[in-house]
């Protein structure tokens, strides 16, 4: 579990706002191992979102390299980048960014658009993912009929559609009340523990950040501090359906055979 999936080398990003130029990231170095749940904290303007955008290939750095599975994505052309955005990373946004005219299932199917997965399979997979985030039976509901927490669950299901290696979450709990906040972070933690998905989450909220195993503090485009949070992997996992003990990496409960990662299963 210690293989490096993501490596940033001397990463810099400068925005030019008219005549003024703003250094969002300056000479940043970072290594993220497979299966790590990392939180990035920092004041506004410290470069959190820029870092995430560069990681997700949504933005190009001014300088430095981003190695994703040993491939330098900064060298890739736009034509190649969409494949990485589609298959390697999954994005979760603060404002959910669901398409309002599509229902929950269609929103989850969206990233599979243009892949070779057959229509029927996409549908089935989307329903499975929605079940996994606790939204069974809500497949046909449009975003406006879902609560904020439910919408973010749909967004998480969407991020998982193409089974990405890394999930990038930009303030995923920023628009949620405290009950939903913890449910979402637990959902992410379960994904991390049970599926081994690498998660990098930007947050303002120290309570949320403390749920992760690794905390990075960003200021003026540099990592100024690193801290270990609660080590989720050490926590005891139980199945929400029957209460029996489960192991990290289980996708179904060994006792009752039901699909895991359901709402509130983490204790």
């Amino acid at each position: 579990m210690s293989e490096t999936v993501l490596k940033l080398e001397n990463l810099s990003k400068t925005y030019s706002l008219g005549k003024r130029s703003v250094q969002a990231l300056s000479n940043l170095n970072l290594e993220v191992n497979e299966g790590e749940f990392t939180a990035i904290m920092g004041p506004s303007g410290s470069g959190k979102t820029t870092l995430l955008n560069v990681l997700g290939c949504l933005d190009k750095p001014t300088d430095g390299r981003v190695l994703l599975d040993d491939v330098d994505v900064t060298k890739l052309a736009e034509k190649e980048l969409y494949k990485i955005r589609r298959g390697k990373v999954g994005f979760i946004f603060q404002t959910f960014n669901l398409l309002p005219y599509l229902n929950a299932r269609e929103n989850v199917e969206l990233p599979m658009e243009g892949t070779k997965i057959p229509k029927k399979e996409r549908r089935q997979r989307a329903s499975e993912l929605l079940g996994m985030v606790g939204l069974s039976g809500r497949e046909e509901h449009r975003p406006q009929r879902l609560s904020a927490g439910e919408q973010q669950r749909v967004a998480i299901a969407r991020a998982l559609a193409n089974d990405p290696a890394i999930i990038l979450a930009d303030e995923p709990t920023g628009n949620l009340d405290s009950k939903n906040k913890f449910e979402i972070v637990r959902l992410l933690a379960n994904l991390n523990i049970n599926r081994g998905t690498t998660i990098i989450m930007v947050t303002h909220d120290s309570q949320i950040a403390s749920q992760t195993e690794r905390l990075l503090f960003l200021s003026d485009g540099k990592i100024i501090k690193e801290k270990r949070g609660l080590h989720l992997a050490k926590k005891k996992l139980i199945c929400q359906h029957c209460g029996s003990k489960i192991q990290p990496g289980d996708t179904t409960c060994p006792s009752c055979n039901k699909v895991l990662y359901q709402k509130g299963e983490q204790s």
Partner: protein
Amino acid sequence: MAIMISIPAGITSNQASTETLTQNLSDTITQTEATINQTLTQIECTLAPNFEGFGFAPPDMGDSRFAPPDGDSGFTPPEFGGGFRPGEFGGGAFGGGGTTAMNETLYSDVSSLENVAAVTLTLEASEGTEQTMEMMGRSFTRLVPDYVIKGVSLTSALFGSYSILPTNITDGRNLQAGDIGVVLLSENNTAFFDAGVGDAINILDRSFKVIGVYAPSGVEDVMNLYMNLSDAQSVTNNTGYITSITVFAESSDVVTDVANAISSLHPELSIVTGQQRLNQLEAMKTNYETALNNAESTVAQTQSVAVQEIIVAVAATSLIILFVMLYTVRERTKEIGTLKAIGFRNWTVMNQFMLEGVFLSLLAGVVGIAIASVAAPTLSGLLLPAVSQAAFPSRFTLASNSGTLVSMALTPELILIALGGSMLLGTLGSLYPAWRASRTRPAEAMRYE
């Protein structure tokens, strides 16, 4: 979109009506010219009817139930320019005025005048149904003729030298001197009577044999049915009466002298010489030619106006689509960013916006066709110059061409062109916005609220 579709429909109908009109006018001009050539030595004498008002179609034109002539009726020469329709002169070859019966014996002295080559007497009577109509607040009864009986004095001296009978015989033979109990029908008459050469037909309860059929030379003689004068007089119960005397002068040089002589002998007669008639016809021809020119220039004008309007409509439509799509792209920047963030390809995004633009324009095209199919006449009437008003003095009432609202031809071709055009405009208008959407950099798009 409705405007774009209505205008071509408007042009088509404008053109159609103008073409009919032009055809009518040229026919009339040709007929007029033919008549002019025949007319040079001819002098037409009729008893002027006593009109109440002038300038309108005379009531009871050629009614068979006319009263015997009133010797001292107020004598007014028939004035030209009454309410005639293009291609249709009043009754008879000369027309222009009404016909009043006159006692043939009173005028037997005309033939003995100097320089008179021949005299032919004619009784003309229309048979048909009466119809009451309103005109200028006055109501009067007008006879809608089924056929017009033309009794002509069949004298051997007249045949060959003077054209008093139709010349274009298509079946049977022409009338000959001394023919009694036979008729010469026009092709249109054969349809009305449902009879051909050799058949017997019934005219005012008397049986006549069809001797021949002729092709009418123009609108003025389509309904004429020729027979011997004496037959015509007895069958219409007008024995001894005629409606016009046609005098042929020895030569065109003496026409005026002969006309003056007739005039001094019978001051009550309305006399029209070939020359006068010629002048009238020339004036009429000029009138028609002016109308024709006006009609043609209106068509040209209509087309240039229509071209301008179509250019404006197309430009406006493309701009509207462009702005709507630009707005849409702007409005949905975040959505575009999201789509790109979850792995949409540039051209997938572009495709989506292109499709949207084309679909919207297609929808607009369908709505436009719906509006145009209902409102095309009104719309193009508002936007295009109208043929009837621009080309004609008000006294020309064109029964078959009243205004541009003839028929707005929304043909399947036009509908297809309109749909194709709206799709093309949709494509053009959304090209740039869709391209811009596809080029949106996701990181920037995500910041956009």
